[in-house]
């Protein structure tokens, strides 16, 4: 390469002239406006996500509080919420912990081929059976919006709303739906069992 022929100084001068000429060039104001719009949108989404997480955390804490309160609540006179005769909810085998389930009942097995055919014809499906809602606030304020939380509670909690539970099943776990109001207070509860058909 012929380094002696290269003129670095005039090149630097020319580059400086270009840099000086373009010194004031910058992105048009629309770019800033678009970026600020994106920033606000992104930040608003972030704030909403944090608020949602806080609401969920508060609701979960409340649900846990309800579970404890229901357990510690002294037994009261059965007072069904809607039905004149309280619906009976039995603790499902599925919800019962394996360690507490006791000895497994004796099962009479169908012949394999028959069982297979039956299974192919109608696969077993779990259906939810729920009680009516039992109010947890008395008097209950008007209800606008809220959330339903699925929680697991000891079966003893069912007695507190007047549902019959056998003594030997009091420690079993049952599923319940807790209706939490917009203000975060638990409004009503219903119990769930799963029937396999």
């Amino acid at each position, binding site marked *: 390469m012929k380094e002696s022929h290269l003129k670095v100084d*005039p*090149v630097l001068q*020319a580059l*400086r*002239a270009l840099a000086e000429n373009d010194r004031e060039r910058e992105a048009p104001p629309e770019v800033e406006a678009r970026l600020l719009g994106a920033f606000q949108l992104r930040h608003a989404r972030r704030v909403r996500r944090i608020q949602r997480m806080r609401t969920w955390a508060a609701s979960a804490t409340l649900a846990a509080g309800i579970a404890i309160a229901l357990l510690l609540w002294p037994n009261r006179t059965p007072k069904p919420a809607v039905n004149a005769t309280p619906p009976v909810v039995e603790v499902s085998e599925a919800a019962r912990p394996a360690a507490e389930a006791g000895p497994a009942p004796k099962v009479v097995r169908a012949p394999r081929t028959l069982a297979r055919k039956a299974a192919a014809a109608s696969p077993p499906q779990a259906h939810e059976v729920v009680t009516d809602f039992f109010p947890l606030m008395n008097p209950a304020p008007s209800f606008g919006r809220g959330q339903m939380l699925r929680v697991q509670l000891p079966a003893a909690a069912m007695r507190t709303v007047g549902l019959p539970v056998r003594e030997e099943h009091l420690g079993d776990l049952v599923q319940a739906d807790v209706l939490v109001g917009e203000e975060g207070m638990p409004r009503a509860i219903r119990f769930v069992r799963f029937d396999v058909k």
Partner: protein
Amino acid sequence: MTSDEELLEAALHGDEAAFTALYRRRQGPVFRFALHTSGDAAVSEDVTQEVFMALLENGGRFDPARGTLLSFLYGIARNLLLRRLAMKRPEDSDALPEDLAADDDVLDDLTRRETIEAVRSAVLSLPAPYREAVVLCDLENASYEDAAAALECPVGTVRSRLSRGRAMLGQKLAVKTARSIS
């Protein structure tokens, strides 16, 4: 004055004023880097916007130990530009037109306006590695360290690219001038 890093930290926590201040402080160099590298104002506008969007999305990845925030922004802009330019046009050859000897006075013959446009055009015709080094170090006055961080190469490589880029530029300008005279 609040540092770039402090502004970024605040912006990532939702401080709009900090983001605006950081943008206003650094958009010019980013835009000009894109402009001198691509030669296209619309592309430079898009790249500037995308650089700051990327900063909002991935600003947490900025590591001050690896370079300044400005070099981080140059690095993002460079990657965006390389992607666009790779699609747009083939690289120029980096061979020097050695058969043409440069006249010592030819650059002086150009008017200021012509010089500027000739230099702009010559810079744009440099192969990307040399163009990036010249634009960062000579047009934007970035330090060798910042340029090295942005270009993801050692400082020594920046120096050698810069030297070769200037030499090529001298030759290209000499050719242009000789042609315009003839």
